[in-house]
């Protein structure tokens, strides 16, 4: 039975620095294995599409530029991504990784949520194809029944 | 073995009422039972104080259509009453047809079953006779009647509307 058991802590808190982090002004270093934005390395990809198949949120599309020469472009939607790293786990050729530096992804425009990864000329080709009317983008992940 | 002893004692409680008993896993016993005998079986489990009701799972077995377009089997619903005692689990399985989905409520024996029964009534279209509360538990108040979202035939409210119009 006692009254005011917290008193010691109250005094301590009054004279110590607040623990609140002053976030946008002072940023803490992210931990080493933070699961941030997905990064894709087109050099190693063989186009097995496992990542597309098992992505729980349909965040990944692998667009085929030239299947023989192993030319792929990854279209990645950070807004759909749930950052579970299942794709990283699945990829046997280590072309996928999750960045621990890019994790502040709030944006006021939708454009930043449409990321193309790949060799520059391949991306250019894909975008050009997409711009051409009447031609659909190559098939990517099966659309989910809505 | 402790599990076997528990399962044996549980088995002896419901043996006389069961249609068939199988043991799919070491610590599990599946007891198929008719809807008529269910309450009796639950009663003997409760009075013997054998474990507690974990939950009631609903399963939908949609009607099978044979290749030559003749009705294979009518649609059925299955309710699984899971009882657990330590690590032993006894499941009472009750199959009922779509046309007459009635099961006697067990709420007077186990009051907490009310929530599970309400859930099944809404989501599968079971009809629990004498259940104390038939109000909606999880679905919105404006949800249409006789639309049971966890049945396999349900693919979305929009589709449901379309089907209705087609029937008309």
């Amino acid at each position, binding site marked *: 039975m006692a009254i*005011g058991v917290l*008193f010691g802590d*109250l005094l301590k*808190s*009054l004279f*110590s620095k*607040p623990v*609140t982090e*002053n976030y946008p002004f002072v940023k803490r270093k992210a931990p080493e294995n933070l699961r941030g934005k997905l990064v894709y390395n087109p050099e190693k990809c063989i186009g097995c599409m496992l990542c597309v198949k098992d992505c729980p949120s349909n965040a990944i599309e692998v667009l085929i530029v030239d299947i023989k020469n192993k030319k792929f472009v990854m279209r990645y939607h950070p807004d759909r991504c749930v950052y579970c790293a299942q794709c990283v786990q699945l990829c046997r050729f280590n072309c996928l990784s999750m960045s621990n530096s890019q994790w502040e992804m709030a944006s006021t425009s939708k454009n930043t949520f449409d990321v193309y990864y790949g060799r520059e000329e391949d991306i250019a080709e894909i975008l050009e194809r997409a711009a051409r009317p009447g031609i659909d983008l190559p098939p990517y992940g099966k659309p989910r029944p809505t | 073995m402790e599990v076997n002893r528990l399962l044996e004692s549980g088995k002896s409680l419901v043996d006389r009422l069961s249609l068939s008993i199988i043991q799919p896993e070491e610590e599990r016993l599946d007891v198929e039972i008719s809807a008529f005998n269910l309450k009796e079986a639950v009663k003997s489990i409760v009075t013997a104080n054998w474990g507690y009701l974990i939950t009631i799972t609903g399963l939908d077995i949609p009607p099978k259509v044979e290749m030559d377009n003749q009705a294979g089997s009518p649609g059925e619903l299955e309710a699984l009453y899971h009882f657990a005692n330590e690590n032993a689990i006894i499941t009472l399985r009750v199959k009922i047809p779509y046309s007459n989905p009635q099961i006697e409520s067990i709420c007077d024996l186990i009051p907490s079953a009310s929530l599970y029964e309400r859930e099944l009534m809404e989501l599968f279209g079971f009809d629990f006779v004498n259940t104390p509360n038939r109000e909606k538990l999880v679905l919105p108040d404006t949800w249409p009647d006789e639309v049971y979202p966890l049945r396999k035939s349900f693919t979305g409210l929009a589709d449901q509307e379309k089907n209705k119009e087609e029937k008309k």
Partner: protein
Amino acid sequence: MNLSLHPLILLLIFPGGLFLMNIGLLYEWIDRKLVARYQNRVGPRWFQPLADTIKLLAKEEIIPQGVHKGLFLALPVIAITGALTAAVYVPLFGFRAVYSFEGDLIVVLYLLSMMTLCIGLAGANTLSRFTIVGATRALTQMFSYEAPFLLALLGPAMAAGSWNIGKITAYASNNLWLILAQPIGFVVALVGLMGKLELPPFDAPEAETEIVAGALTEYSGRGLALFRIGKNVEFVVGITLVVLFYLGGIANPIEFILKTAGLLIVITALQSLFARLRIDQTVGLWWRLGALMALLQLLAIIIGKYLGEFLR
């Protein structure tokens, strides 16, 4: 200190009226900031209460269905008027009271109770269930703390032999600080003040986890802003009264700042030290403990006074 200004200025701008309201906002900020610091948080910036008030004043006032419209609109005004009028009779910031007469202490105490009455009425006026429960609690709490609080302020009055705040203050500043002479009275007065202002742990009438915002749940915009300003003014007046009576009076603004700040640190610590009392616990505490202690204190004063006369 005496101010030679036009009475209207004294009343409306300084030290009463406008200035007082701003000081009220400042006190609210200090209160919130200190509580935050006790809880190891950063707390709001200095303009937060002002920003809140401006925001509320600018917002649309929603008058709910089923209320007496006139009463609904009048109550916040009456509440803030009560608090501001009370301030007129209290020597604020070390300046002499604008008006004073024999017995003004009683008037001030009654004016301060207006706020709670108005909140109670406001709650009972609306149909919302939260406000009605809140109003019941607010009035219940008022009936419990009012008597001990009155008794606690009666102590210094009896010692000084006057009902005039000015005279009591003069007595308090010329003698031993009354916090030492009447420690029990001080504790009762301080805790009574917290009950009056519905500060935690006596915030059952507006316990957000039970009844949202209590009696004021249906208030929005201007009405809510007025209630809040009124409460802040009451906060300042209440603290000033306690300082005047128990901490040896206030001779100048600097003394005022130092003494009230000291008292604020204590009040905020008490706020963050306890779990909220249920309304029945509050009533029990006040009647069983508060009133008894205040009566004991009174008895001690009477005996002391009698003995003093006798020995002289």
